[in-house]
């Protein structure tokens, strides 16, 4: 039964939809880590992005075209993610606080902040559907059997996610900005002696990472469910960290890892419905277990940016 075309179309379509937030956040994370800043706060930034997107869409209500509303919501989410990322950048780059501790604090902050604001807006139980990203169907291509509906009949944000990793790879490997970012995480002293500012490079990369995490949150909340629930990112920000490692800090390979995790997530949702007599919690675990296994397999073979996680300080003595 599971191998009939309808199932595959349904599964593949859901897999890509679930992978979309992961891809967006992963690309941002790759930039931040390439510049030398570890960001475990991606989870929190996604959560804040999701909340901001839903709240923006909610307040704009039916006042405009859903496409316009979702666009404004996405921009608001990116600004919110970038704002949280600014805290991370200030603490880790300027104040040289431990990056893990700062990231963890940001996750806690984001969870508390969104929970509180959620109750303030929607009360104890309320959750309201809002306008989300419009569905796009590419003519002709969407008519291809099986593959067509999977790839070409999706929410608008999914199509954005198709292009982001390609653009990101181009920027990273074919522009001077990318060169500076790559050098910043590997050997910041060389960046400094070349007359470039390590601080500026790292701020830019972290802010971009935050904006992408915010957009990922918007994709999560407005892509399918179209409402916000507290803690709705459910650890996806950490799966993203795994995807970065598995993807060896390359935007396109990392996006591939995200597709894998998205497919696993889509599969577990369907497996739960099959009534196989296995407690559903085991299925929920599946994408996370896969992420852990993939990271464990990747570690040792991939070499991270050599100064990842270390604050830069020009030699004093």
């Amino acid at each position, binding site marked *: 039964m599971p191998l009939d075309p309808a199932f595959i179309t349904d599964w593949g379509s859901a897999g890509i939809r679930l992978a979309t937030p992961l891809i967006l956040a992963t690309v941002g994370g790759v930039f931040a880590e390439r510049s030398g800043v570890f960001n475990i706060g991606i989870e929190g930034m996604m959560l804040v992005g999701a909340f901001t997107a839903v709240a923006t869409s909610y307040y704009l209500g039916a006042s405009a075209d859903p496409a316009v509303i979702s666009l404004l919501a996405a921009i608001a989410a990116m600004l919110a993610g970038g704002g949280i990322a600014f805290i991370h950048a200030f603490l880790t780059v300027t104040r040289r606080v431990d990056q893990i501790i700062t990231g963890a604090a940001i996750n806690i902050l984001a969870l508390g902040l969104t929970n509180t604001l959620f109750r303030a807006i929607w009360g104890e139980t309320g959750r309201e559907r809002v306008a989300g990203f419009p569905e796009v169907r590419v003519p002709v291509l969407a008519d291809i059997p099986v593959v067509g509906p999977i790839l070409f009949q999706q929410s608008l944000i999914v199509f954005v996610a198709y292009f982001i990793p390609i653009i990101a790879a181009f920027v990273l*490997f*074919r*522009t*001077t*900005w*990318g*060169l*500076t970012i*790559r*050098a910043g995480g*590997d*050997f910041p*002293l*060389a*960046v*400094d*002696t*070349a*007359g*470039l500012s390590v601080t500026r490079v790292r701020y830019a990369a972290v802010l971009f990472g935050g904006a992408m995490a915010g957009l990922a949150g918007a994709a999560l909340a407005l892509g399918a469910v179209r409402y916000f629930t507290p803690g709705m990112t459910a650890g996806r920000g950490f799966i993203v960290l795994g995807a970065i490692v598995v993807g060896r800090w390359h935007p396109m390979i990392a996006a591939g890892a995200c597709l894998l995790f998205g497919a696993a997530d889509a599969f577990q949702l369907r497996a739960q419905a099959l009534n196989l007599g296995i407690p559903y919690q085991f299925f929920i675990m599946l994408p996370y277990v896969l992420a852990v296994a993939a990271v464990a397999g990747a570690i040792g073979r991939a*070499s991270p*940016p*050599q100064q990842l996680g270390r604050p830069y300080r*020009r*030699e004093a*003595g």
Partner: protein
Amino acid sequence: MGRIGCRGNQEKAGVGSTDQQSSAPELLRMERITKRFGDLVANDEVTFEVLPGEIHALLGENGAGKSTLMKILYGLQQPDSGQINLDRRPVTIRSPHEAVSLGIGMVHQKFMLVPNLTALENVVLGVSSPRPPLLELRDPRRRLMKLAEEHELAIDPDVPVWQLSVGAQQRLEILKALYRGARLLILDEPTAVLAPVEVGQLFRVMRLLAAEGRGIVFISHKLSEVKAVSDRITVLRLGRVTGSLPTAAASPSILSSMMVGRDVSLERVSPPVQGDAPILELQDVSCLTDRRTPGLDSVSLTVRRGEIVGVAGVDGNGQRELVECIAGLRPITGGRIAIQGRPPKGALRTIGLLGLIPEDRHEQGLVGDFDVAENLVLRAYGRRPFSAFGFLRWNHIRSHAVEQIDAYDIRCPGPETKVHHLSGGNQQKVIVARETQEDPALLVAAQPTRGLDVGAVESVLNLIRGQRDRGAAVLLVSTELPELFAVSDRVVVMHAGQIMGAVPPDPTRLGEVGEMMMGHTIQVAGDGGTAA
């Protein structure tokens, strides 16, 4: 021969300029530079000048203030007082970037290269692109290859830097400076990482650059090299200039007394001891490097009781892997290692078997924030008398430290001094004291004199000799051939993870060692022998 070439350079430079010979157009003049770090005066009214087309050697021991002076010139540090003039105009250099834009290039001892970028990417990093923000590499590649060809600096532009040999990385650093238009090139101890043949190549390049009218600052503490390549020598000691003279007028004895304030010699003091029982035996040992490339390739070696076997070779040819395999810190992929018949795994935990002086004393040898007493018992703290029933016995640890400080002449205010406050030489003595405390059968010393000044080199080598005389087998890894020849009973040479051969420590055999360091196989007649 070198000097003839250099004189030619100066003439050429003179022709190129409008000034007369008498008031030579200085390229650089650093005047009365003073720099203090707390109580330490690193530079005390130092005046230093470089002419165009001149190779000016800056000579001095470690800690004499050479590096500080050059860091000031390169904008990494600011002087407390004094003036820098370039082309007779006063300049302030606040950052390396400003130094570069003024035409100053520096090749640091530790290269400023990004390991995961290619050679070409490293060269264009921070240089504005022809079509920003696109990373346009076609023109830069052409310019780089042209510079490389003109200056005999062969380089593969598309290989990631971590795959380049140390010599190639140095060439890349020089090219990087030239690409940015350096008229004044500072080379900080450039020969420390090179094999003798490569040193010769570097000197040729330096003369070529000087002939173009560039000024070269050559930092070194090796008299022979300074004599071979420079036009003028300025000697620093304890932050002060003790003299500045044309190379032609400088004799080694004058220079060394200007450097150290006394004569120092590294002559052999004891005749070779005839070894007997084998303590360390390696048979066809192979292993991998951290990057999973071949590290050691079928190395066989025997070190006997009462003998020092020196391991020569250019850095990065398997010496580190050899030491780590012997110490049981790196898995071997083939062959057999035995220390007194036991496998190396756990050898460091066996009392009186293996002493290890690691290559990086800060990372591996000491805990910088621990005091001298604590560092001295890092190996033995779990045993009596230093602890009992899981509790440390501080009175024993302290009194032990007082004894060792006295016995090893560790210069420090007391056992409670944190080791990172000690000088390099005294730090090394702490390690030697700890590692030889239980009279190990085998002592492995990796680059034990690296970064030490001449006086400290002498005392550390004497401590190592003392271990040999006590009957220990000693494996001494060093890149400094004179030291190896002064203390070893036998010198083996490593190249690309292999042992190329062995020679007795006879100064007439230095040439063979140099050849073998470059990977050339030499038929060794008879002696040398036990490295089968």
